[in-house]
C-alpha cells in the first residue's frame, strides 16, 4: 500500500482521502469481524460472539462511504484519480459517469466488496432468529471473505490511486458500456455472485458446528434464492444488451466471461433444489453443503477468469500475474479450505429421511446431477484451451459448436424429466401415476409440435422440437399447480389460496419452458438479409418490405452518429418507421452500431445500417428474430418464480420469529 499526495484541482482535497481511509479501516474491521466471533464461538464466549453483528454493520458503512466517495469522484470528474482518468470524460452523460464507477476493474471490485459487506450486514440485521453461535460463525466467515477482497483491492487494484499531474480530460468509458442494459448488468451479477457467499458461510458454519438440519436449510434457502434471482436478472440483462447492441441479434456467445456467470447460476439452481430436500426431508445434507461450497467456489473461479486475463491469453497472464495470482490465492484458500473442512466433517451429517428410488427426492437428485454435469461441461469447455496449451502444448479454441453439442443434451434431459419429477410424491412416488396424469400435457405438446412442423414446411426439426419441449415443460408446470388444488369443488378458489412457493415453482418452471422454446425458435427460424441498398430502394425481409428512405449525420453528446430512416411495410400496409444508427465515439476512436428494433409478441424486426459503399448506397442488414421477446419473458418468469418463493409465508414467519421455528432448532 502506498499513499501519494497530490495537488487536487477539485478544491476538496480531503474527500478522496476519506474514501481511501474508510477502505483501509474497513479492512481492519473485517479482520475483527472474522477473528473475534470465530474464537468466541469456539470458546463459548458470548461477548466475543456479540462483536460479529455490529462489526458487520460498521464494515458495510465504511465501504458504503468509500464507494460513495469514488462515485463522487466520477460525478465531478476528479481526474487526479487514475481510475477516473482512465474511464471517464467530462462530456460523458451523467448516468454513465455514475455507472462508470463500476465500469472498470477497481471500481467494480469495490462494488463487489460493498455488496459482500451488505450481505454480512443483512445477516446481522435479519439473523435475529439464528442460534447465537451459528450467526456469529456465519458473519465471521463473511468477514473473512471481506478481508480477502478488501486486501485485494488495496494491494493490487486500489481505486484511490492519484495521478501526480492530472490531465485536463479523461479517456472516456468504452462506448459499448455506455448503455442502460450494461450499466445495471454488473450490480445484479455481483449481487448474485456475492449472494452465494452467504450459502458458503452457512455451509462452513454448519461444518464447524457439525450439524445440518431442516432449520439450517430454511435459513440458507432464502439467501440462495435471492442470489439466484439476481444472477438470473444479471445474466438476462447482459444477454439483452448483447442482443441489441452488438448488431446482429446474437444473445449468447459461450464467451468465457458469460460462462463465468452461467456456472454459478447452474450450481445455485442445483443448490436451491437440494436445499428443499434438506428442509422438507432432512436428506441430501452433505451433498447440499458440498454444492454450497462449489457454488461460491465457481463465483470465485468466474472472478478469476474475468479479472486475471488468463483465458484471453496465457501470455498476458504471465506478463502481469499480480492480480491473477492474488485471486488464485483467494480461490485456493476459500474453495480449498472449504473442501478440506468438508472432507473432515461431512460424515457427521447423517441423513434422517430415507426415500425410495422413485420419489420426489430421487427426482431432485437427478435434477442436481444434470445441473451439476451441465456446469461441469461449461467449466471444462471454458478452461480447456488453458489446460490443452499448458499440458498438451496444443493450442485449441472451444466455442459455440462445442457447447451446443456438449451442453444441450443435459438440458434437454432436464426438461424431459422435469414435469414428471415435479409431480412425484415425497419419500415414495408412483411414476406410472405421475406419467398418466401427464398424458394430456404430452398429447397437447405433441399436437402443437406437429402443427408447427406442418406450418414451417421442410425446415430443420429444431423448431418443432423446441415447441415440443417448451410446451411440455410449461403445460407440465401448469398441471402441477392445478393438481395442488386437490379434488372436488372450489378448485379455482383454492388455486388463489395456494402458498406462494407453489406459484413460484410453477412460474420458474414455466419460465424455463418459455426460454427453451424461444432459444430454439430463434435458432431455427431466424431470417437474415445482408445487402447493399440504394437510397429509396426497397428490399424484402421475410414477408416485410423495407425501404431505405434517407441517411443523415447528427451530433450526440459525446459521439457523432449516422442515422438512417427505414420504412417497413407488409403487403403495402405500414408497419413501422425505424432509425438504425452507426455511432462514432471520438475520444476512444470507436464505432458502435445501434440497431433499430421493432418488437411484437411474434417477432422482432431488427435493422442495422452499415458502411457507405463506393458505388453509392449503404450496406444494410435486416433480421427477423422470431419470438425474441419470449427470451426475456422466460427469464423474467424464472426470476419472478424465485421472488414468489422467496416471499412465501414460511420464510416470512421464519424471518420474523424470535422463537424457534417448528421442526427443531438446535437447543444450544
Amino acid at each position, binding site marked *: 500500500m502506498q499513499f501519494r499526495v497530490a495537488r487536487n484541482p477539485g478544491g476538496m482535497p480531503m474527500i478522496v482521502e476519506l474514501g481511501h481511509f474508510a477502505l483501509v479501516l474497513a479492512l481492519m474491521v473485517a479482520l475483527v469481524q472474522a477473528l473475534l466471533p470465530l474464537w468466541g464461538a469456539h470458546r463459548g464466549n458470548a461477548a466475543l460472539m456479540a462483536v460479529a453483528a455490529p462489526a458487520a454493520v460498521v464494515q458495510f458503512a465504511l465501504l458504503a462511504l468509500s464507494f460513495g466517495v469514488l462515485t463522487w469522484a466520477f460525478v465531478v470528474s476528479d481526474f487526479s484519480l487514475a481510475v477516473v482518468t482512465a474511464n471517464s470524460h467530462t462530456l460523458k452523460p451523467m448516468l454513465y459517469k455514475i455507472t462508470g464507477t463500476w465500469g472498470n476493474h477497481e471500481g467494480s471490485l469495490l462494488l463487489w466488496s460493498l455488496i459482500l459487506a451488505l450481505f454480512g450486514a443483512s445477516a446481522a440485521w435479519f439473523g435475529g432468529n439464528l442460534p447465537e453461535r451459528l450467526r456469529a460463525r456465519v458473519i465471521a466467515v463473511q468477514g473473512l471473505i471481506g478481508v480477502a477482497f478488501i486486501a485485494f483491492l488495496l494491494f493490487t487494484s486500489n481505486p484511490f490511486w492519484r495521478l501526480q499531474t492530472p490531465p485536463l480530460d479523461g479517456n472516456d468509458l468504452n462506448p459499448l458500456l455506455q448503455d442502460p442494459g450494461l450499466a445495471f448488468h454488473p450490480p445484479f451479477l455481483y449481487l448474485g455472485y456475492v449472494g452465494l457467499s452467504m450459502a458458503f458461510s452457512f455451509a462452513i458454519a454448519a461444518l464447524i458446528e457439525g450439524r445440518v438440519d431442516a432449520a439450517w436449510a430454511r435459513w440458507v434457502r432464502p439467501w440462495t434464492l435471492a442470489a439466484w434471482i439476481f444472477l438470473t436478472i444479471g445474466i438476462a440483462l447482459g444477454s439483452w444488451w448483447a442482443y441489441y447492441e452488438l448488431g446482429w441479434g446474437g444473445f449468447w456467445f459461450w*464467451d468465457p466471461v458469460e460462462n463465468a456467470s452461467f456456472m454459478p447460476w447452474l450450481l445455485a439452481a442445483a443448490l436451491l433444489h437440494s436445499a428443499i430436500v434438506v428442509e422438507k426431508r432432512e436428506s441430501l445434507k452433505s451433498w447440499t453443503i458440498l454444492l454450497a461450497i462449489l457454488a461460491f467456489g465457481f463465483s470465485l473461479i468466474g472472478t478469476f477468469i474475468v479479472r486475471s486475463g488468463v483465458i484471453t491469453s496465457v501470455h498476458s497472464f504471465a506478463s502481469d500475474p499480480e492480480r491473477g495470482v492474488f485471486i488464485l490465492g483467494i480461490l485456493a484458500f476459500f474453495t480449498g479450505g472449504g473442501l478440506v473442512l468438508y472432507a473432515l466433517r461431512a460424515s457427521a451429517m447423517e441423513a434422517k429421511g430415507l426415500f425410495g428410488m422413485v420419489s420426489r427426492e430421487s427426482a431432485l437428485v437427478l435434477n442436481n446431477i*444434470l445441473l451439476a454435469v451441465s456446469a461441469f461441461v461449461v467449466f471444462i469447455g471454458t478452461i480447456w484451451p488453458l489446460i490443452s496449451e499448458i499440458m498438451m502444448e*496444443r493450442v485449441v*479454441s472451444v466455442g459455440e459448436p462445442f457447447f451446443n453439442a456438449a451442453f444441450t443434451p443435459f438440458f434437454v434431459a432436464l426438461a424431459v424429466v422435469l414435469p414428471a419429477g415435479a409431480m412425484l410424491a415425497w419419500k415414495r412416488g408412483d411414476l406410472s401415476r405421475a406419467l398418466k396424469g401427464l398424458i394430456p400435457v404430452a398429447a397437447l405438446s405433441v399436437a402443437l409440435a406437429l402443427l408447427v412442423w406442418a406450418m414451417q414446411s421442410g425446415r430443420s426439426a429444431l423448431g418443432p422440437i423446441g415447441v415440443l419441449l417448451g410446451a411440455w415443460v410449461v403445460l407440465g408446470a401448469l398441471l402441477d399447480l392445478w393438481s395442488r388444488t386437490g379434488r372436488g369443488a372450489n378448485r379455482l378458489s383454492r388455486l388463489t389460496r395456494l402458498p406462494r412457493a407453489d406459484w413460484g415453482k410453477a412460474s420458474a418452471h414455466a419460465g424455463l419452458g418459455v426460454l427453451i422454446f424461444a432459444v430454439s425458435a430463434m435458432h431455427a427460424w431466424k431470417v437474415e438479409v445482408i445487402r447493399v441498398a440504394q437510397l429509396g430502394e426497397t428490399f424484402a425481409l421475410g414477408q416485410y418490405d423495407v425501404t431505405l428512405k434517407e441517411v443523415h449525420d447528427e451530433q450526440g453528446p459525446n459521439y457523432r452518429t449516422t442515422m438512417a430512416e427505414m420504412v417497413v411495410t407488409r403487403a403495402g400496409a405500414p408497419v413501422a418507421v425505424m432509425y438504425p444508427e452507426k455511432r462514432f465515439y471520438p475520444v476512444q476512436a470507436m464505432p*458502435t452500431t445501434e440497431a433499430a428494433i421493432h418488437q411484437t409478441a411474434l417477432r422482432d424486426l431488427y435493422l442495422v445500417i452499415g458502411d457507405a459503399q463506393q458505388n453509392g448506397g449503404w450496406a444494410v*442488414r435486416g433480421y427477423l428474430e422470431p419470438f425474441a421477446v419470449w427470451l426475456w419473458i422466460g427469464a423474467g418468469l424464472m426470476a419472478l418464480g424465485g421472488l414468489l418463493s422467496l416471499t412465501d409465508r414460511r420464510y416470512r414467519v421464519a424471518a420474523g420469529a424470535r422463537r424457534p421455528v417448528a421442526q427443531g432448532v438446535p437447543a444450544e
Partner: protein
Amino acid sequence: MIGFAAWRARTAPLVLTLALMAGPALAVQPDEMLADPALEARAREISRNIRCPVCQGESIDDSNAAISHDLRVIIRERLVAGDTDDEVVDFIVDRYGEFVLFNPRASGSNLILWLAGPAMLVLGGGIAFFAMRRREVAPLAALTAAEEARLKEILKD
C-alpha cells in the same frame, strides 16, 4: 505452429486492449458475398465456426478485423474452386493452426474434453444410484414370530 504461438504472444497486449467485449459486428460485407445462395450459405456456415485469430472470441463471420475479411474471402475462393467444406477448413487449419477452430476436433487429447461430460454423468449417476439403493426405504418386512404373537395379543383385547 511455433511461429504462430510466438506471434500470438506478441499480439497479446493488443488483444487485451480490445478485450472485454466484441466490437460492433458488421462482419460479413455485401460485396464479399457469393451470388450462388447455396455456396454462400456453406461459406457462412464455415466462417461461423472459424475463430478470428486476433480478436477476443469472435468468429470471422462476426469480426471486423482485416484478417477476418481475408479469411472470409479465402473461404469463398476455395468454395468456388470446388473444395468441399472439410477441405476448406483443412486449408485454413494448415495455415493458422487448430486455434482457429471453434469446434475442437474430437481427436487425441481433445477426447478428454468431449468425453468429460458423459463420463461425469455416468460417474455421478452411478454414485447416486448406489447411494440411494443403500439407503432406500426398506420394504415393509414381514412380522417376526414374536411380533405376530404380540399383535394377536393386542387384537384379542
